[in-house]
């Protein structure tokens, strides 16, 4: 017997159940298909403007900085301003995200490199597929559009998010991922990011910038 079957048999013996019990299977399939929701905190269930405001407040509470621009075309200038204000070089790396690619970066001084990071970049720019206002959380997905290495290797991570993509809760974001990728399917990596990297492993003193970015700057578009 394989290790797999032996493990399943041990579990069934302990539970006193049979693997071919149609009733049990139906219960499991119903949950996996129906994906029932549990308790959703009321705090995120707000009209659009207040929801975006909650997202901003929660993100700032965990030491992210947040800016907003009225339209996507203003994003490159907002990034340039942020880099200058923090004495960072006007050089960023991003993936092939069509939303970011369509922006007028050439109107700024910013030099844009493309593709995954090898650790040599000071600033990464990504486009979040969604956000959850309840905790100020960004949701990013892997792929050529937004390589996952950009979320972790550069010291500064700048993330653009459409105001319309900010949901009240995690469940709404997961429902939109399901609509985009199909039921039961996720991209290789989905990152929920809530503030910049930190550690409190030395005497419980909270320090920013452990292994991931020291700075997380969020630009809300629209």
């Amino acid at each position, binding site marked *: 017997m394989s*290790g797999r079957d*032996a*493990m*399943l048999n*041990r579990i*069934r013996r*302990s*539970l*006193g159940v049979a693997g071919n019990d149609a009733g*049990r*299977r139906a219960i*499991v399939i119903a*949950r996996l298909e129906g994906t*029932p*929701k*549990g*308790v959703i*905190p009321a*705090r995120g269930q707000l009209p659009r403007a207040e929801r975006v405001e909650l997202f901003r407040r929660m993100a700032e509470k965990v030491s992210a900085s947040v800016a907003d621009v009225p339209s996507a075309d203003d994003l490159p200038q907002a990034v340039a301003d942020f880099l200058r204000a923090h004495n960072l070089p006007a050089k960023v790396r991003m*993936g092939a995200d069509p939303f970011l690619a369509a922006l007028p970066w050439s109107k700024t001084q910013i030099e844009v490199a493309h593709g995954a*990071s090898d*650790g040599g970049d000071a600033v990464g720019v990504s486009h979040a597929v969604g956000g959850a206002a309840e905790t100020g*959380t960004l949701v990013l997905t*892997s*792929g*050529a559009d937004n*390589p*996952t*290495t950009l*979320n*972790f290797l550069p010291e500064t991570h700048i993330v653009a998010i459409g105001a319309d993509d900010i949901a009240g*809760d*995690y*469940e709404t974001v*997961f429902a939109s991922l*399901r609509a985009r990728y199909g039921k*039961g399917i*996720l*991209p*290789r*990596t989905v*990152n*929920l*990011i*809530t503030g910049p*990297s*930190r*550690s*409190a*492993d*030395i*005497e*419980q*003193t909270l*320090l920013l*910038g*452990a*292994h*991931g*970015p020291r700075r997380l700057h969020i630009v809300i578009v629209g």
Partner: protein
Amino acid sequence: MEITSPAFKENAKRALRDPHLQQALSHVRHNFIDKRQKAVDGLAEFDALRDSATGIKNHTLAHLDLYLEAYEQKVTASGGHVHFAETAEEARDLILKICRDAGAKTVTKGKSMVAEEIGLNDHLEANGIEPVETDLGEYIIQIRHEPPSHIIAPAVHLTKDQVEQDFRRVHTNLPIDRDLTEPSALLGEARTILRRRFLAADVGITGANFLIAETGTSVIVTNEGNGDLTQILPRVHIVLAAIEKITPTLEDVSQILRVLARSATGQELSVYTTFSTGPRRPGDPDGPEQYHVVILDNGRSAMLGSQFQDMLRCIRCGACMNHCPVYHAIGGHAYGAVYPGPMGAVLTPQLVGIDKAGHLPNASTFCGRCESVCPMHIPLPNMMRHWREREYEKHLSPATVRYGIGFWAFFAKRPRLYQFATRWAMRALANRGFGRGRFKSLPLAGGWTKFRDFPAPEGKTFQQMWAERKKAA
């Protein structure tokens, strides 16, 4: 790690006399408790979420075989591999084989308590593969050759000065006169050193907080970002997790996430909650080429259907030890096992046997704080009581305890004699302690009075007072 639970009493005495440890533990007593309380107070639905999360785990455990099958099918469909390990030894060998097949020389590791449970680092090292712990706390204890003393804050038993000494001892190629007085300087030094290790590693090993049946996904929850660099940079990603991490859906994970960080560190959500599904996809510019999941049993399936099943709801938040007066006094190492504190006192006897771990379920005053803060409503004191009973049944309790209980039982089985004897004893003790209300020393109670006074009885037994109240009413 070497299990020293049989020497718990000596360990505890040593811990109480260790000034560094006592200084470090003073941070635990307040920080964790205050932060958790603030986070709990900040979310009106916290208790409803606890109930919801508890229900999800109960449902999952009752159908664990079927969810495991569904999970495996999804991982395979996304191009990953699932391996099943009955014992710690099997898990170690499976991981070693994957590393060898990948031609691995160095392996980066995200924080994993299951890796500690199976003694993975020693096994890899003995076979010529260098494991590099990358969580700051885990890195510190690795260079000290120590086990973790806490399940979410592995170096919580150390002071900043001790860490500085270790860094100076190990990082010998850095200037001797560098300033390491601030914790931020220590963090910066570890970041620089570990960044090189991340980029050079052949295999990355992480644990998992959840394995999602709906999507075949492993989830890790971290604050530093080390777990992510561990799993996206090397060619091979190995996930090591135990069977109880299976969770049905993304919605179910969302419920548990809302109680996990709040109970652990008092954060609303940890910084990085990362969902990983299979290896890199066609067109992906980064991510591992291979994705393996090693699922460990190691005695857990035997807990299903037993009086210890509820323990499998544990999500390893650490709230029970953060609130435990015994843990506060002696820290995690004194328990002499991988999992310390109340959850460890229940789990360790299952993993290493009650004959070795018998002291642990006895190292509790049953004050109940662990159960009251447990986000999964695990009845920890009750389960410690079950272990005490088993210890007694197996005749493993010390002779003094057995004779003591036998002595008490002799009277308890003879109510008239019991009442007479206790009345007499209470009156005698009350007379002798009169005026002070306490004893500085008592015959046969030196173990107690050596460290604190023994309160003197008021003069009447409970049964006497009960009878008087009844008469008055």
